[in-house]
């Protein structure tokens, strides 16, 4: 049993944790940016799927994972356009629009995939690797952490830049104020509409990238309902992390760990009912919520459309 815990196994285990965590992390960072600006997007399950599907199709067509990721980001923005136009611009109900995006995203990607790939399903093959010289030679963790693709590194850099920007730039300050008190931003000469528009678009980019990462790198293929509720988990993680991107990264990794544990325990020969393994992350979340009862404080203006001068 213990010989199972070989170096290769641990390497793959760590790589799995990362592969599972990354799509969630990207989606949750995207949701965080939206929520910080006051937009609760219940549609990210759909946005992820659209990002995943467009990324998948374009990668198949062009043979380039990079272009595929780009397509995923664009798909995410297009999917979020409904939120942009109907909520940010016209001030309509976020919950309804979010649900609509989820339903349409799930439906259309599933229908399109089955129409186009039923008879000849396609796979994307292995991701391009970009081993970091030196570091990737470290035993066990080297191959797990430093033999990732360039896309992985770009995503990490993107997330870290956003974490910095949200905290330290005037863009970040404006974004946060749009979720805290949009009237303040407006009075200070900022534009609530532009700030929220930017946030929704950026959120679409990240969530779309999350979906594309899931399809291109984590799974290396698409299948209907590929996300399997990951979008809703991203919402949970966003609310737990209270707008701090570094915490989002951490909680996403914890989730990745929980997912990777499932098969790992079984391989080791530990038979825990699969249902329990599947419930585990959620039980952890609810216990965390009970213990740190207030850890899901959301921005005060979350969900509220802003109209200047309205009474």
């Amino acid at each position, binding site marked *: 049993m213990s010989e199972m815990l070989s170096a290769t196994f641990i390497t793959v285990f760590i790589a799995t944790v990362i592969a599972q965590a990354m799509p969630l992390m990207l989606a949750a960072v995207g949701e965080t940016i939206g929520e910080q600006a006051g937009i609760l997007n219940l549609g990210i399950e759909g946005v992820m799927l659209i990002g995943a599907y467009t990324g998948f199709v374009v990668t198949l067509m062009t043979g380039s994972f990079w272009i595929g990721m780009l397509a995923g980001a664009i798909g995410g923005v297009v999917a979020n356009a409904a939120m942009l136009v109907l909520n940010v611009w016209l001030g309509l109900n976020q919950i309804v629009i979010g649900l609509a995006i989820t339903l349409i995203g799930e439906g259309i990607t599933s229908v399109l995939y089955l129409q186009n790939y039923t008879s000849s399903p396609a796979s994307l093959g292995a991701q391009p690797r970009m081993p970091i010289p030196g570091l990737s030679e470290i035993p066990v963790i080297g191959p797990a952490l430093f033999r990732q693709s360039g896309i992985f590194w770009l995503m990490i850099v993107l997330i870290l830049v956003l974490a910095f920007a949200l905290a330290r730039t005037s863009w970040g300050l404006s974004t946060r104020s749009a979720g805290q008190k949009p009237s303040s931003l*407006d009075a200070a000469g900022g534009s609530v509409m532009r700030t929220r528009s930017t946030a929704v678009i950026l959120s679409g980019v990240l969530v779309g990238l999350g979906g594309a990462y899931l399809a291109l790198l984590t799974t290396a293929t698409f299948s209907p309902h590929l996300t399997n509720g990951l979008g809703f988990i991203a919402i949970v993680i966003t609310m737990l992390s209270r707008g701090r991107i570094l915490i989002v990264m951490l909680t996403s990794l914890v989730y990745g760990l929980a997912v990777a544990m499932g098969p790992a325990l079984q391989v080791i020969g530990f038979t825990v009912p699969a249902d329990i393994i599947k419930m585990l992350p959620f039980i952890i979340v609810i216990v965390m919520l009970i213990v740190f009862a207030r850890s899901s404080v959301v921005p005060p203006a979350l969900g509220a459309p802003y109209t200047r001068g309205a009474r």
Partner: protein
Amino acid sequence: MVTTTATSDVISLRGITKAFPGVVANDDVSLDIVPGQVHCLLGENGAGKSTLISILAGMQQPDSGTVSIGGTVVDISSPKVAVDNGIGVVHQHSTLVPAFTVLENLMLGDGGVLLDEKRATRRLEELAGLLGVEIDPHALASDLGLGQQQQVEIAKAMWKGSRLLVLDEPTSMLTPQAIEHLAESIARVKAEGLAVVLITHKLREAYAMGDCVTILRAGRNVGHISTEELATYSEQQAQDAILAAMFGEDIVAVGDEATELAGATEASRETAAIDFASRPVRLELRGASSRGAGRDVDVEDVSLTLREGEILGIAGIDGHGQNALSELVAGQRPASTGTLVFDGDDITRSGVRGRQRLGIRYVTDDRLHEGTVGSMSVAVNLVIKRIGEQPFWRSGRIQPKAVDAEAKRLIDEYGIRTPSPATRAGTLSGGNIQKILLARELTNGARLVVVNKPTYGLDLKTVHLVREILTDFAAQGGSVLLLSTDLDELIELSHRIQVISRGRLVGSVVNDGPGTAEKVGQYMTGAIEGTD
């Protein structure tokens, strides 16, 4: 060196008209704002003062009319244009983000990519020097007292260098000390050559701080007292002129009370004649402490006695436990220790509805969100505390006729100006909403009413009416626990005044002569130290 863009340019408003559905808020208003002067804007609630300011600030667009600076017409199409033109506004409702630090609040709207904390700190120091105040740049806005919040707001209004500073009702929540502070700051700003617009409901302030006065009524500019005139007027003359403009023909109805309305005289109350000691005790708190849920200040170990027909004032800086005390008495907040006795019965454990039935009522200071449900009709709001009770509900089902009849009765009795009982309460003006609260709370067997800041933000006439309602209530044997930050109001109404500070009662003064204000002031200064 303080950077301002002050020039000698006059800001001229010409023919400003702005209508909202059903109301013309500004009707052909013209006025000039001159650098180096404080221009006071007065008028009843809803006269259109804030609307005019919103137009200057770019928050509203006029239907017609122009704003020009130094002769050039400026289209203030957004707050950004206003800021760029050096128009800084402190709005009636705070625009600070509570969860941000002072510095973050100030840097909001700054250009550039990175937040430049160093430069911002330097600018804050400059402005603090100019205003003569001290501000901790890293404190959270929500942790500041109201006076300090206002200082931050002023700093924010002047952040990018300004030629005009507009203050919309800055004094209504401040203590006398803080108002004095503010006056000094305004004087310094004026000395820098900036123009200042000041909105207030208190004529004394207008006279003390203003260089000239404009009066709005129903959206129109109905009177202007120029700098030269104001300089020659005595305080009394100025008040007469303002009141005449403000109320027009109504002044006849207001009559003798005009001066009282103006809050001009040093208020005091004749209480010697009443011997309260012989009256039965209505409410007694014995060592009561409250236990709230939020970040709100709780009261600790409060003991007080309130007798039949008595108005007991509670003075103090806002946020020192007034909410906790009112809610404790009303039953909205549980007592963690101590007991509450009402008419000889222990009510510590009874809830809001139980106390309501006993005759304990509460007029909250949050009339819009707590006191009324804006989306529901005036009629429902008038019976909202009697849900399920006869005759408005029978076996659980609402009886619209009974509700309507009761609503009509109260609307008449309290003169609530509403198109119909079915109108949504949220569309009424602040004064009328306050009347809904009073009508609801004082009717149907009220024996004790807790009123929290009953006249906050209301105009002279409404203030007067509200105060009259409360005095009448007490005269008929009702007891009033009056919590207010307005010392004049406390002195005018109360028989006795206690001072609250950080959740504790720190002193008690009988309101029986001219010295009351000073005594209360002393207790309050003790309280102010360290907080403001």
